[in-house]
């Protein structure tokens, strides 16, 4: 059992949870994730380890409420617990001195970016952070990243905060102004695709972190498979980070939609139950 130390909604659709997981806190490295199960009925949900406190034995998770499991997560209170936390899983990010690294985060993808920015900075890189979201409510970790990064650029699609525009516009500007040695892009698939297409033309090495649908997370089911450079790779054990110039994003996008009708069914059933229990209290 993993006791929840805090769980707060940062916006109507984004939550932050700090939960006991001493083994993960001790061993995790930037770029790795956990798989959690809320209760006996729960799915195995992959979430990135955004931060950890070794001394306290806790890890920090950020989640976007998109369906049943993430909605259930948002309902949990301090003192409640998660049934299972498995991890750390996946390869850590390859951290070394590249020179100038631009870290691009979109939406909830800003959370996985956070530990990577810290590690790259510590390895002596100049780190420019570009974060973006549809609107101000969806932006997370702006303050924390501002402290870590050499420079930070913030944009929103609707201009409600920072620059109006996409992260790719900001990236174009930075790359036009100085030599960039590495780009790390994490966010919605269309964003990672757009960034990869942009940097391909500029021949900048680009790492993306994929969020394929997973079950076991140990390389046993193959459900998380993606095409990278024409080869089948398992996101959970071969990734989650891959060379953005090699990833078949269109296929990934289609595979993420595999359970759309089941997800709706599940969410409707869940909401119905919440109504009966009188716990439906968030902003959805």
């Amino acid at each position, binding site marked *: 059992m993993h006791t929840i130390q805090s769980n707060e909604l940062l916006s109507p659709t984004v939550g932050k949870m700090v939960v006991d997981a001493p083994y993960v806190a001790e061993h995790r490295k930037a770029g790795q994730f956990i798989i959690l199960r809320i209760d006996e009925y729960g799915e195995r949900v992959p979430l990135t380890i955004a931060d950890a406190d070794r001394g306290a034995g806790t890890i920090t998770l950020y989640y976007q409420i998109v369906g049943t499991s993430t909605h259930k997560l948002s309902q949990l209170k301090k003192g409640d617990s998660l049934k299972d936390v498995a991890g750390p899983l*996946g390869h850590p990010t390859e951290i070394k001195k590249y020179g100038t690294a631009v870290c691009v985060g979109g939406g909830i993808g800003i959370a996985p970016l956070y530990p990577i920015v810290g590690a790259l900075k510590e390895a002596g890189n100049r780190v420019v952070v570009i974060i973006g979201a549809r609107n101000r409510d969806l932006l997370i970790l702006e303050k924390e990243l501002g402290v870590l990064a050499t420079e930070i650029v913030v944009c929103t699609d609707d201009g409600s905060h920072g620059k109006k525009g996409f992260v790719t516009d900001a990236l174009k500007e930075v790359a036009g102004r100085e030599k960039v040695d590495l780009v790390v892009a994490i966010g919605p698939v269309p964003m990672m695709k757009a960034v990869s297409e942009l940097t391909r033309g500029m021949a900048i090495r680009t790492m993306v972190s994929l969020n394929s649908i997973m079950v076991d997370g140990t390389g046993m*089911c193959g*459900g998380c498979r993606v095409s990278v450079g024409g080869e089948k790779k398992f996101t959970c054990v071969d990734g989650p980070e891959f060379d953005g110039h090699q990833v078949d994003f269109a296929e990934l996008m289609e595979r993420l939609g595999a359970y759309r009708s089941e997800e709706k*069914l599940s969410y409707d059933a869940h909401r119905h139950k919440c109504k009966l229990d009188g716990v439906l209290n968030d902003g959805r």
Partner: protein
Amino acid sequence: MPEQPAAERVQNFSEVPYGFSDDTAMAEAGRCLQCKKPTCMDGCPVGIDIPGFIKEIRDGNFLSAIEVIKQTNSLPAVCGRVCPQESQCEELCVLGKKFEPVAIGSLERFAADYERTREQLPLPARAPQTGKRVAIIGSGPAGLTAAGELNRLGHAVTVFEALHSPGGVLGYGIPEFRLPKEIVHYEIEALRRAGVEIVMNRVIGISETVDDLFDQGYDAIFLGTGAGLPMFLNIPGENLQGVYSANEYLTRSNLMKAYRFPEYDTPIIRADRVAVFGGGNVAMDSARTARRLGGKEVHLIYRRSRDEMPARKEEIHHADEEGVIFDILSNPLRFLGDDKGRVRGVECLKMKLGAPDDSGRRRPVPVEGSEFVVDIDVAIIAIGNAPNPILQKTTAGLKTGRHGTVEADGATQKTSKRGVFAGGDIVSGAATVIEAMGAGRRAAAAIDEYLKTGAW
């Protein structure tokens, strides 16, 4: 053994054979000749005293029967159900030459079920603590057997399991209707009560290596990580939505209980038309699961003929009874998808049987111009599993074989690395529950010896 009728059982996930009543069990046991040289025992990889336990059943001493079995087999309720008895103990039963062999597996199941549901044996006596610690990686039948034995011998045993639930393939692979999970949990609970520590959600080889475990004070390590890496056909369209590996399909249904979705949160695609590729036990399990998940037309597509199928006869028979359509001598060429990237069909080629190959089975050869399309909404690929690669990649000094198996001595299960033993599917490649258990037993004996003498 009496069974749930096919028409009824495709509507549920309850166990297919009902099991013997006391009377039928005693009558069946009465057929055993109590041979002086029981040939049946040569067919049992763990050497159960078969006439010994059958005699106890015959005489109505059911608890004594299970006591005899448990001397050499710690998972009898499991083996009585899933052992390929017809090619092991029962194949060698002398009665089988002229009549039906004694139903050894069913009697084993009876004795084990009796103990679980009606009258329990006391916990086996445990030798005094030796102060030695053993780490077991993987909680499948190989790991659990080694753990049980070593614990009984007085060593402190910790099992590390990657998933949230122990049992390996017994938990995630073999379906509920063949092996109720309640039984697996019961057997594992017994190990826990006996003193075995099981740490779940722990993948060894990512954050911590085998050498790290030695550094933490483990004196010996057993690798029982199985053959869990799914093989794919590697044909076009294989990444379309709705194309599953058998591992994924069965894991969703069994481990995650997707057959009870949306009560359980994990989804699985329920489709009218399903194709399963392969001809082994895993293919049969997948096809029978697909029928139970509402599949109206479930095709089993296999490139050789029915006689060449590696699955147990009983399982082929069950699948047949349940209305699975056998498309034999057919080989898939590519999957066809719709504009949303969902699988909608599979194009296959007819095959005919040519000369025998290395395995002695006749090799299938393509019939030119015989392409045909089967319309489907879900595809399940069940053409085999290879060893899990994580430990092999991260353990220094561990010798591996050609297909990624770990090399181990046949008698002691010793690997090329001092203090490290291995057994089960990780060594043999995909095999059987009872062979994995046999390896676990041999390893436990050799580990005990190593811990006592320190000799490698």
